[in-house]
Structures are given as structure tokens and as C-alpha cells.
């Protein structure tokens, strides 16, 4: 079985890949995808620390994070759909107002 630090390395790499996506993508949908990657990396960390300490609190906090992310994605996508209606594009550079 892999040790705790292996999981932490995996999560760090996943987080960095997500960060690359957040910086380079121009489409807002792709940006949300990259944010999902980063949240996922954090969740792996929570679960890994909980596992290593023999404690279930890590899993519980990861579940909280999952619920929060789903709420965030729902609101984000709603904003995106509205943006696409008003500006005929989902590129982030066009998003300067919300009306």
C-alpha cells in the first residue's frame, strides 16, 4: 500500500495541472473544468490524511467539499448560460458585466 506522502504528491501534481488550466483556458466552461480538477486534488488530500490518521473526519470534510463544489458548479453554469445568451460567447474576456 502506498504511503501518505505518495498520495500528497499525486494531489500536488493534480492541483498544479488544474492551475495550469485555470491560467491558460479562455473558455469559461474549460475554466470550471480546471477548477474541478483542483477541488478534486484537495479532496484526495482530505481523504488521504483521514486515512493515515485512522480517523473518519477527513472523509466527512471531503463530503462537505463535494457538496459545496456541486453548488458552485450549478451557479457557475447558470451564470455561463446567461453570459452565452447576452454575449453570444462564453469567452472570459467578454464577461465584463452581468446584465
Amino acid at each position, binding site marked *: 500500500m502506498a504511503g501518505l506522502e505518495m498520495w500528497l504528491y499525486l494531489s500536488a501534481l493534480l492541483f*498544479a495541472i488544474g492551475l495550469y488550466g485555470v491560467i491558460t483556458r479562455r473558455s469559461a466552461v474549460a475554466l470550471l*473544468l480546471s477548477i*474541478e480538477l483542483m477541488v478534486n486534488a484537495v479532496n*484526495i488530500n482530505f481523504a488521504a490524511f483521514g486515512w493515515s490518521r485512522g480517523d473518519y473526519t477527513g*472523509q466527512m470534510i471531503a463530503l462537505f467539499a463535494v457538496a459545496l463544489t456541486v453548488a458552485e458548479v450549478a451557479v457557475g453554469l*447558470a451564470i455561463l448560460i*446567461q453570459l452565452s445568451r447576452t454575449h453570444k460567447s462564453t469567452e472570459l474576456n467578454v464577461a465584463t458585466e452581468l446584465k
Partner: protein
Amino acid sequence: MIPFYLTAAAMLVSAIMVVRSTDLVRAVLWLSVVLGATAVAFIQLKADLLAVIQVMLYTGGVITLMLFAVLLTWRRDEGKPAAGRHRQGIGALLALGTAGLFVAAISRTELPEHTPLVESDSAAVGALFLQQHVVAFEALSVLLLAAMIGAIVLARRSDA
């Protein structure tokens, strides 16, 4: 050890495909591979409940929602993964820097004593939710309700 490396490889390769793929539909599908691999990782970490929730909420719900969003919105800007080579360079530099910083920090930190969970206990997680952390749990349900109403109001057509 081998299951860990397989999961990690699947996760990292498909994560790179998510950020590099020019086709958004494909990027969403690659993300579902990442999320599935994460569910496998959770099972290895003795978090069965988390793995099931991950599959139900993410691979089932969020991916479907994302696909709808991709297909419902305008995509004439598709096909350009990034804003020019310059921005890609900055992105790669920052990502590598962050990864290096994290890896250095992890390798220098003395990790707490390793007493891993031996079996998955979903009932224990549920008890934590409904006993010790019940206030946070209730606050979360209010937040979910607010987010749901907010999403509906935002996505509604203004002329309807």
C-alpha cells in the same frame, strides 16, 4: 503499490488531457475519467461512502450538467486551448513552480504517525455528520437550497 500507480497514472494523464484538449466535449469526458479514477483512489483510502458519492454526484450529475452547458452555450471560440504561447508559458511556469513548491514542502515535512484505517466504515462518517458536526451539516443544506434557487433564477430567461 501497483493499484496506486495505475490510479495515479490514469488520473494525471486524463487531467492533462482535460487542460490541453481543444474540444470542450472531449475535455468534459476526460474529466469524467479523472473523477472515476478519484473514486478508485477513495476506495483505496478506505472511503467507500465518499467513492459512491463521487460517482453519483460527479460522474453522474456534474458531468451531465457540464455537457449540457457545453452544448447549450456558444462555442465559436472553441479550438483555442490558450491565449497564445506567452500565456501558456506563464501557465506552465506557474504550475511547475507550484508543483515544485508543494513537492519540496511535502518531502521536508515530518508527517504525523501513520496509523491507517483498516476498513471502511460509512456508519462512522454518518455519525460524525449527524452528531458532532450537525450544525455545519444543517448550514450546508441551507446553502444548497440557496444555491439551487440562485441557479434557477440566474438561468431563467429574462423575457419569460
